[in-house]
């Protein structure tokens, strides 16, 4: 379908999705989706709102179960794991929720310390050092005494990012990290994703519909629409794509294969129906 620039193989991939099929009620969310998320790279999963990009992250994390197909993370088939094994694997996966999902009754410091306190037996002195290091990485060491309600949206997301890397995971999944950010915060988040990925040797999955921001940092992009992978490749490949759908999405054209109008009866008929 489209030229794939990088060599894709199971050995180079941290996450593989094979023939995934997922339904919500009768609605098909994913139909025959296959993907390879390469190790050490930033992979973006893009598509219009409501195409189930977040659902895909939850499937990868094992919070939802596919109806058909298989997902492996680091060689482990995620839906065949026992609960304890799944939890063990999740300690090595970080996820940044759209809202940040900070614990509102805990301070910034305690939020970042939460996974350390739950999963390790480190002393409080050690935890303090680690937490301050993680907060330093996102530039919020000075804010460690604040409560989540006192943070701006961008700050909350950076704290959540510090919490997600607290246990030094092998991968991070970002759910719409750019939504509702002012330009400065957006630039910070973009930089952080790239920086953390390279400095910590992470594998990153970014779910987003902001094509311009995502294209700046992603090594590979998967475009999803109507439950299928429409196209994948490097940002440059997608920008030059001939497919009408990809063109509409990448260049943000209001009308095209994805219609501007929600399906309905003809306009004239509808207007005259009342009289």
């Amino acid at each position, binding site marked *: 379908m489209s030229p794939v620039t990088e060599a894709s193989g199971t050995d180079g991939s941290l996450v593989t999705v094979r023939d995934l099929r997922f339904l919500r009620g009768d609605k098909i969310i994913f139909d025959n989706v296959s993907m390879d998320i390469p190790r050490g790279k930033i992979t973006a999963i893009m598509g219009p709102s409501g195409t189930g990009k977040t659902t895909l992250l939850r499937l990868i994390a094992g919070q939802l179960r596919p109806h058909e197909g298989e997902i492996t993370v680091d060689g482990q088939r995620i839906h065949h794991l026992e609960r304890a094994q799944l939890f063990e694997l999740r300690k090595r996966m970080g996820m940044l929720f759209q809202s940040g999902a900070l614990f509102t009754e805990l301070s910034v410091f305690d939020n970042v310390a939460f996974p350390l306190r*739950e999963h390790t037996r480190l002393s409080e002195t050690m935890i303090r050092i680690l937490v301050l290091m993680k907060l330093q990485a996102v530039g919020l060491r000075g804010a460690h005494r604040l409560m989540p309600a006192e943070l701006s949206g961008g700050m909350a997301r950076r704290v959540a990012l510090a919490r997600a890397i607290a246990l030094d995971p092998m991968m991070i999944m970002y759910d719409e990290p750019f939504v509702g950010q002012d330009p400065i915060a957006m630039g910070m988040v973009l930089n952080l994703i790239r920086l953390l990925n390279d400095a910590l040797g992470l594998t990153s999955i970014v779910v987003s519909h902001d094509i311009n921001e995502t294209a700046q940092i992603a090594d590979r992009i998967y475009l999803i629409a109507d439950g299928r992978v429409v196209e994948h490749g490097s940002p440059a490949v997608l920008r030059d794509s001939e497919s009408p759908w990809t063109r509409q999405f990448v260049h943000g054209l209001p009308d095209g294969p994805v219609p501007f109008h929600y399906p309905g009866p003809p306009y004239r008929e509808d207007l005259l129906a009342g009289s």
Partner: protein
Amino acid sequence: MRFHRVLVATLVEIFASIGRRGLRFFPLLILRLGRGSLLLFRILAGLPRACLRPGLVVKQIHGLGVLSLPIIAVSGVFVGMVLGLQGYINLVDYGATAQLGALVALALVREMGPVISALLYAGRAGSALTAEIGLMKATEQLASMEMMAVDPFQRVLAPRFLAGLIAMPLLACIFTALGILGGWYIAVWQLGVDSGSFWSQMQASVQFVDDVVDGVLIKSLVFGFVANWIAVFEGYDCLPTSEGISRATTRTVVNTSLTVLALDFVLTALMFGGN
């Protein structure tokens, strides 16, 4: 051995047919009961771990119990005062005002203490519990906890349930004790009943095991179990929207009140109906 197997098979078939019929006629009720039972099971499974972290439970006892004290205390005093006044008005015609202590104490210990404190608890603490858990669900805090490989049943639901279970009998005892003092104040200080006969009649007619343990303690334990189960379930099961949370909160108060009143009749019939 064969007979045994046939018996088990028949019993299973009977239960399955009850289930099928129930599902046909009251699908929503049965589904909710099923989800509620599963939730209770998972909470009970998480209780041992919750006991290992007394700090979490103590914090919740403060939120659910200590912060409910003002409303419980004020209501207890007033209910006791009304009982004293009404009892006096009715007993004075027969010259039996010496029995006032027994009347006030028995009414409070057997019925009003556990029932009214459970109803107040549902309004004050149960609704807050539902709203808190519902909001944690809506803001993805529970999901992010799961992603950090922390079981929300062990970390969030079980400590709250246990704390409520501990707080309820204590609140009922305080309510009852303050109610008796309220009745005593009205009877002795306002209406001129002899203080000695007030207390001695009470001592003569109230049995520790039959009245205090059965009435206040066992009833309030049962009510506390039900009230906290409903509150936690409604919070966890709510639709994660503002309307969903508001409905869940209302349902907590309504369902707890109805269940407590119905259960009170059953318990009263079992405990005091025999003699």
